């Protein structure tokens, strides 16, 4: 008894497409990484950058910290973080959630992480485990996180939806409602992105700026440095 064989024949124009698609799948599998931090327990330890101790010169380069012996007579303390200028005011906000502050001025004297985000943004959500861990780690210190919620899509504009999403995502820090995105564009100047994370020092100067996911170690180190 003969068994029928079904043969699938691809036309000549389809073959290169199929080969290219297969190659792209392989590249996508290599390039698509899991979020660096999906669990607060899995977060790498904070890089300690001690800039207050005399006789030690600490510099941060990328994700590594190099600590070298310095001249013991040199009593100057070198701050490894660049000063990117004073922070701009928050413009035409539509209110706050989970907060008793009205502006960033109210947080002067604290180290503040400011993040532009929107709850429907996949990449913004991927940064939250690290922010939650950072918030827990520095609870009780002069430290605060402010999430500036600048909706990309209409369905992300309702305060009730934002509050529900914040609760679901474990966002417990103050949220500034920037529904008209005045601050989103005003702060970032030129092209504006989700997510974008800044760290402000106690005087309100921008000392760290990163667009997108990643750079968690650098962010954590910047906060630790500024908190001293």
């Amino acid at each position, binding site marked *: 008894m003969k068994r029928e064989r079904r043969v699938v024949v691809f*036309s000549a*124009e*389809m073959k290169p*497409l199929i080969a*290219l*698609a297969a190659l*792209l799948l392989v*590249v*996508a*599998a*290599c*390039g*698509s*990484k899991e979020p*660096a931090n999906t669990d607060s327990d899995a977060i790498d330890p904070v890089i300690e950058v001690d800039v207050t101790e005399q006789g030690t010169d600490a510099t941060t380069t990328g994700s590594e910290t190099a600590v070298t012996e310095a001249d013991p007579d040199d009593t100057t303390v070198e701050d490894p973080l660049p000063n990117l200028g004073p922070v701009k005011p928050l413009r035409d906000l539509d209110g706050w959630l989970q907060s008793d502050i009205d502006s960033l001025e109210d947080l002067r004297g604290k180290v503040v992480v400011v993040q532009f985000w929107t709850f*429907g*943004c*996949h*990449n*913004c959500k*991927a940064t939250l485990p690290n922010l939650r861990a950072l918030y827990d780690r520095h609870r009780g210190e002069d430290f605060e996180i402010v999430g500036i919620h600048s909706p*990309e*899509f*209409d*369905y992300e504009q309702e305060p009730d939806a934002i509050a529900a999403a914040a609760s679901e995502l474990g966002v417990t820090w103050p949220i500034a409602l920037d529904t008209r995105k005045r601050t989103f564009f005003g702060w970032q*100047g*030129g*092209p504006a*992105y*989700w*997510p*974008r994370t800044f760290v402000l020092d106690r005087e309100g100067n921008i000392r760290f*700026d*990163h*667009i*997108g*996911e*990643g*750079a968690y170690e650098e962010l954590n180190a910047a906060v630790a440095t500024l908190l001293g």
Partner: protein
Amino acid sequence: MITALGEGISQSLLPCSWTLLVPAIALGLGTRNVAVLGVFAGTVIVTAWVVAAGWFVAPLWLAGAALLAGGLLWWRLGPTYIPAVLVGVGAAWAWRPCVGAELGKALTTAQHSPLDALGGLGAFLLGVIVVGLLIGLAVGALIRRRKGGRLENAGAAVAVVLGLTMILGIYPKIASMLAQWSTALWA
């Protein structure tokens, strides 16, 4: 660069990438001319790089105007170089990315050192564009095989409609509905 390319491919179907993906699908649907497709990809990369460096950021209506002009020329001349350039410029101007780790590195670098960012940004965009072109080419090949019809004008129509929705300001509402729907489906 490979990681950035992979990130572009893996993020190509997210709502943030649709302003690049849809024109790429349209172009892939309209032509199999590799040189025209290459000009489109190159135009998107260079234009997006200029935006990332902060040298020129276009409002959405201007992106729509470029797409509309590209679509109309495409309709009249066929999917040739000039329409591909205009559609590429419009798509890159309209692109409002959500940013992963690799694209984030490139965009952060572009703020102070644009040339150093070109490789990573280009690789990411290439990932998104190639997925769109492949979808368009594959759908086009299937339709041609079954019906034998001409598809050049279908891609032009997509570019015209996309451009009009941006000029009239209804694109954000349509994108919002689609994004909400796709997010719910994903969840």
